[in-house]
C-alpha cells in the first residue's frame, strides 16, 4: 500500500506540483480562480506551449534544439511581411513551410554529421545565430507592424463564444494531434527508442536519421505556429521577438517531467509543464511580484522540482 502511494506520487509529481500552485494561488489571490483569469492563463501559455510541444519531440530523441527562438522570430517576420503581398492563408502556409525548412536544416546537419546530444546543442546554437542573423538582415533590424487581415488577427486575439480563445483552440488541436503521433504510432515508439538507446535502435532497423530529421521538422513547425499566434496577438513582428524562448521551453519541458537525457517524456507532460509555468507567472503577477523576483522564484521552483524528482526516483527504484 505504502509503495503504491509512493509510486503514484512519483508518477504524478508534476501534476501534484501544478495542483499545489493552483491551490496556493486560489487561496492567496482572490481573483485567481475566476473564469476570466483562468482563460487568461491558458491564453498566455499558447505560444510557449506550442514551442514546448515541438521541443519535446527533439528532447525525447535525446537531442536539444536551441534554435526554436530564432526560428520563431524568422517565421514571424515571414508571416507578417508576406501577408502584405498575398492572402493571410497563403502567408501562414509560407511561414509554416519556412519553419519546417529551418527544422530540416537542423535535422539534416545533425543527421549527416551523426552528432551526439552535446554536439546537437552546439550545432543548434550555431543555427540559432544563423537564423537570427537572417531575420535581422531580412528587415534591416526594423520591426514590422501587424497584419491588416482580420482573419490573421483573429488567430491570436479572437475567441469563439465567450470563453474559448482561438489561440487556445489551435494550441489544443496541435497538441492533441502531436500527442497522438507521439503516443499512438510506431513513429512515436521509434522516437522513444532512439532517445533511450540510439545504437540499439539503429541496429534493430529503426531509421534513426529519418526519425530525428522529422522531429526537428516538427520542432520548427511548432515554432512557426507559435510565431503566427505571437505576431497576431502583439500586432507586429520584431527581429528579436523570440529571444530566450528556447530556454523557457526547456524549463517548461523539464518541469513537466521530460528527461533531458532522452527516452523519457510525453507530450502530455510537456502540456502540464507549460500550464505549471503559466500558472506560476500568472499568480506572481497577481501577487504583484516584480520581474526580478519572478526570475528568482522561477529558478528556485525549477531546481526544487528537479531535486524532488531525483530524490523521488531514488526512493522508488
Amino acid at each position, binding site marked *: 500500500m505504502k509503495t503504491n502511494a509512493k509510486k503514484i506520487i512519483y508518477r504524478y509529481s508534476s501534476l501534484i506540483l501544478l495542483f499545489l500552485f493552483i491551490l496556493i494561488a486560489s487561496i492567496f489571490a482572490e481573483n485567481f480562480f475566476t473564469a476570466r483569469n483562468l482563460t487568461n492563463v491558458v491564453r498566455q501559455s499558447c505560444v510557449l506551449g506550442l514551442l514546448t510541444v515541438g521541443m519535446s519531440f527533439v528532447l525525447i530523441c535525446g537531442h536539444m534544439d536551441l534554435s526554436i527562438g530564432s526560428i520563431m522570430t524568422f517565421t514571424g517576420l515571414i508571416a507578417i511581411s508576406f501577408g502584405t503581398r498575398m492572402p493571410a492563408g497563403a502567408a501562414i502556409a509560407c511561414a509554416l513551410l519556412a519553419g519546417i525548412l529551418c527544422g530540416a536544416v537542423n535535422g539534416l546537419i545533425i543527421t549527416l554529421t551523426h552528432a*551526439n546530444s552535446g554536439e546537437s546543442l552546439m550545432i543548434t546554437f550555431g543555427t540559432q545565430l544563423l537564423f537570427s*542573423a537572417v531575420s535581422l538582415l531580412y528587415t534591416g533590424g526594423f520591426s514590422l507592424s501587424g497584419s491588416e487581415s482580420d482573419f490573421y488577427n483573429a488567430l491570436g486575439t479572437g475567441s469563439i463564444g465567450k470563453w474559448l480563445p482561438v489561440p487556445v483552440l489551435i494550441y489544443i488541436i496541435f497538441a492533441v494531434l502531436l500527442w497522438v503521433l507521439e503516443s499512438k504510432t510506431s513513429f512515436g515508439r521509434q522516437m522513444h527508442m532512439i532517445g533511450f538507446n540510439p545504437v540499439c535502435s539503429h541496429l534493430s532497423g529503426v531509421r534513426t536519421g529519418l526519425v530525428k530529421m522529422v522531429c526537428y521538422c516538427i520542432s520548427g513547425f511548432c515554432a512557426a505556429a507559435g510565431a503566427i499566434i505571437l505576431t497576431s496577438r502583439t500586432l507586429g513582428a520584431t527581429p528579436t521577438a523570440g529571444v530566450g524562448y528556447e530556454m523557457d521551453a526547456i524549463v517548461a519541458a523539464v518541469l513537466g517531467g521530460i528527461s533531458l537525457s532522452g527516452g523519457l517524456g510525453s507530450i502530455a507532460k510537456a502540456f502540464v509543464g507549460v500550464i505549471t509555468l503559466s500558472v506560476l507567472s500568472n499568480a506572481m503577477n497577481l501577487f504583484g511580484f516584480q520581474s526580478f523576483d519572478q526570475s*528568482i522564484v522561477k529558478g528556485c521552483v525549477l531546481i526544487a522540482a528537479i531535486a524532488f524528482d531525483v530524490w523521488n526516483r531514488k526512493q522508488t527504484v
Partner: protein
Amino acid sequence: MTKVKKIVTEQKTLVFLLLLVILMGIISPFFLTGDNIVNVLVQSSIYGIMACGMTFAIIGGDFDLSVGSTMALSGLVAILCEPYVGQVPAMLLALLTAAAVGLVNGFLVAKCRISSFIVTIGTSYIFKGIALKISNGDPIASSNPWFGRMGNDKILGIPYLVIIMVLLVLITHYVLTATRFGRNIYTIGGNMEVAHNSGIRTGFYKTSIFVLSAFTAGIAGILNASKLNTASAVQGDNAALSVITGVVIGGTSLIGGVGSIGKSMIGILIFSVITNALDLMGVFSYYQTGIRGLMLIVIIGMEAYARYRES
C-alpha cells in the same frame, strides 16, 4: 610528410587559427600591427578568463550555464559595495559572492545529483534576478576613479587585462597538467563511476569544479565592470554560451575527460580574431552573427563526423 599530416590532424584548430591569422595579415595591412594584436587579446580577455574555469567544468563532464549571471552579479557587488567598505574589500566581496554561487551549483550537482545543465539554468535565473534586484535594473557607474583604471591601464604597452588572462591560463595549465587535482578531474570527466570506485572523492571535485568556474566568472565580472567603468545586470547575458562555444571549438569534448586550457584558448582566440577581422573589413554586424553561426556549425559538424568515422 606524414609528420606534417599528423600535426595538422592533431592540431586542427591551431592550424585553422594560424591560417586565419596569415590570411588576415595578407588581406588587411592593419591586422598584424602591435596595436591591433593587443586589441584582439583585450577583446578575448574577459571570455578567456571565464574559459579557464569553464575548461575545468567541461573536462569534468559538466556544464556551467550560470557564468553570465555570476559575472553580472560580481561586477555589481564590486561597484555597489565600494562606497561602504572601500574598493579592495568590495572586490574581495565580489569574488566571495561568485565563489558562493559556485558552491550552490556544486552542492546541487554533487550532493543532490541533478544534471548540471538544469541546475545552472535554474541558478542563472536566480542570480540574474538578484543582480537585477540589487541594481534595480539600471546600469551602475563606479564612483572610484581607481577602479576603472584597472581594466584600461597598460604596463609596458600590455593591458592589465591581458596579463591577468595569461597568468590565469598558466595557473590553469599547471593545475590541469601537473597536479593530482587536475588529473583527478580528467578521471572524473572520463568515467565518474571508475573515479568513484578508485577512491576519488567525486563530491569534492564536482563541487570545486563549479567553485572554480564561478570564481573565474567573478574575476571576469569585476574586470569587465572595470573596463566599462559600469556594472549592469545584463552584462553577462550571452557569456555562458559564447564561452562554452569557444572551449568546445578548441577541441575540449562536451562528453568530458578530454581537453586542455591551451585548446580552449585557441577556440576563444579564433572567435576574437574572426570578430576583429570582420570589423577591419567593415562587415556589418548582422552578417558577423551569421558567419559566427556558420563557423560553429562547420567546426562542430566536422568534429562530430570525425568521431563517427573513428568509431
